[in-house]
């Protein structure tokens, strides 16, 4: 009978048609990002990044061939991306000019910090780009739960959440329609983070307190420490280390008097390639800790419970998990400690 003869082909056709339309319909798309709507009619053919975190995230998603310009670099690119990065023109080591960015005619600009592209943006406001038909994406780690108009590096109104990192990856994957790669990356990072946390817990050292020293304007002057709400603070907290610094600023200056009195069980110091302040060199940091008449009496310094972490890993980027692994490995090697 006619209905039964056409039933199966009709059903098959409907299935194929609906799956085809689902597959074909990611664009035009719109997503909410830091108070703005990002609308794309098609996959961005070219993208300029402002901020190393966005650059490396796009490389990790396999989108290196879409980059036409990068800027705002803090240190050398991750070794696994060196080959592809060498092919991408670098607009500036620091902040690029607005014209150099739009001169590359990108379809999308990815900005790591709101003070680069935002209300008080050094490069420009988001409206400036939108007026020229260029879409902008600001990474959630810098705008969600953070007031960038207050404090030199911005003040976090809520503690940093690694979900912001995974959200950046997922949203960028969505914008470029490469969701499977995005999901793979997020899964990999989650697993590594869970392993790092487990390692610290397995080391059976409860009630550890810690402080993270980034650098100082001069060797003996008040140091920049990790605030409790920033990325570095998040890392310490997730690993089960109590941050002795109470400030909600990203990198507050805290006096050595306060740190010495708080006497953290573990001291984390940042290693970096930059040499602007004498304290940038982690060897100088160690030397200072051992020679200063007050800090040499700190438990962490006397018992050498000092952990060294790469400064690049202290931002809201995929390197965050590298940092957590470094800290957890080092804490585990420290062995049993007198808990405080």
């Amino acid at each position: 009978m006619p209905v039964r003869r056409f039933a199966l082909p009709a059903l098959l056709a409907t299935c194929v048609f609906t799956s085809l339309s689902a597959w074909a319909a990611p664009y035009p798309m719109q997503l909410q990002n830091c108070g703005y709507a990002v609308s794309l009619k098609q996959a961005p053919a070219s993208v300029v990044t402002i901020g190393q975190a966005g650059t490396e995230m796009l490389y990790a998603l396999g989108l290196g061939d879409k980059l036409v310009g990068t800027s705002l670099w803090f240190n050398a690119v991750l070794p696994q991306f060196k080959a592809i990065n060498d092919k991408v023109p670098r607009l500036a080591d620091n902040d690029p000019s607005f014209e150099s960015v739009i001169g590359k005619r990108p379809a999308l600009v990815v900005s790591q910090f709101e003070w680069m592209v935002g209300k008080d943006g050094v490069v420009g406001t988001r409206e400036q780009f939108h007026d020229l038909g260029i879409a902008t994406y600001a990474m959630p780690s810098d705008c969600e739960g953070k007031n960038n108009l207050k404090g030199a590096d911005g003040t976090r109104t809520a503690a940093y959440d690694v979900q912001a990192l995974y959200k950046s990856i997922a949203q960028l994957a969505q914008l470029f329609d490469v969701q499977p790669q995005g999901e793979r990356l997020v899964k990999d990072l989650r697993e590594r983070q869970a392993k790092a946390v487990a390692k610290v817990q397995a080391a059976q050292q409860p009630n550890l307190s810690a402080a993270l020293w980034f650098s100082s304007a001069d060797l003996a002057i008040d140091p920049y420490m990790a605030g409790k709400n920033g990325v570095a603070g998040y890392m310490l907290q997730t690993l089960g280390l109590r941050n002795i610094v109470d400030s909600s600023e990203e990198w507050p200056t805290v006096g050595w008097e306060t740190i010495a009195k708080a006497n953290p069980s573990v001291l984390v110091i940042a290693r970096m390639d930059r040499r602007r302040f004498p304290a940038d060199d982690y060897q100088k940091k160690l030397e200072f800790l051992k020679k200063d008449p007050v800090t040499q009496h700190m438990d962490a310094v006397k018992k050498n419970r000092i952990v060294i972490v790469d400064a690049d890993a202290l931002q809201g980027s995929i390197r965050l998990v590298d940092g957590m692994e470094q800290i957890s490995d080092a804490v585990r090697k420290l062995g049993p400690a007198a808990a405080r």
Partner: protein
Amino acid sequence: MMEATASARPSALRRPLHGAAWCLGAALALLLSVALGIAIGETALSPSLVLQVLANKLAGAHYAIDPISQGIVWNYRLPRALVAASCGAGLAVSGVILQSLLRNALAEPYLLGISAGASTGAVLVTVVGIGAGAISMTVGAFFGALCAFALVALLAHAAGSGGLRNSGQIVLAGIAGSQLFNALTSLIITKSGSAEQARGIMFWLLGSLSGVRWPDTVLTACIAITGLLLCLLHTRALDAFTFGSESAAALGVPVRRVQLVLLLAAALMTAVMVSIVGAIGFVGLVIPHAARMLVGVSHRRLVPASAMMGAVFLIAADVLSRTLIRGQVLPIGVITALVGAPVFAVILLQSQRRRG
């Protein structure tokens, strides 16, 4: 005999006693300020603990005190208070020298472009990276200060007909130098500084005593005392300058030599202080005026009085900077400006009232 002498020349006998009373009072005030500076800080340490630490270190007592607390009092707070005293005294004495030599009530140590030069030197080291982290900000600031002063002195010398016959020349040269170096500092910061670097410089530019330790204390104390002694040796000459350099020459003062020595002394003192603790303003400007109101215009009393008042003022400002906002240390330059500006206004009004 003594009584006869006393009644015949009461003022002559009263002066040494008067002077001795002042000295004692000043010394006590200084000791009290230093004590307050040690006792008050970011973390709460009980006064008895502080006294025990002092007893341990000065009197060889053997109180059992946690080494961190002992270190905080002896190695952090005491040097800080002493450096504050030395800087205050140094800046105040420099202010006296400049106001007297230039015969300008608004003259202050930074007029010679020293703090502007120091800031340029500091940013060259930290923001541009000259010295690659081997030179500290202090050294960079010191050389910057000396460069700026050399430039200003050269400019003044070239503009004027040699010497300070027209003090306006050096004031204008100083303004030109300051503007130039301030502009250079801004250029460097905006071109290559990140927010963190700019913040580090900012804090230092407004004055910060947080990194000082005993070596800095020894250096600043030596410089301050040397400067003070040098100034005390020239009080007669400074008095003579009150009526201008021609009158001073007529009174037998070797004008060029005195100007050179005192100006260099003021510049060096200021350069060292600024490079160690940053640019702390208003001390060199306001303290000489306040001292003048208290002890008169004779430099024999004005110089030591300014030094003492400067020392006490800066210690007090440092204590305020650490206690005004809980958990945060304000830059000391902010405090001196907030206090100094109204005080200066008061002095201005008082002197107007006295004159008219």
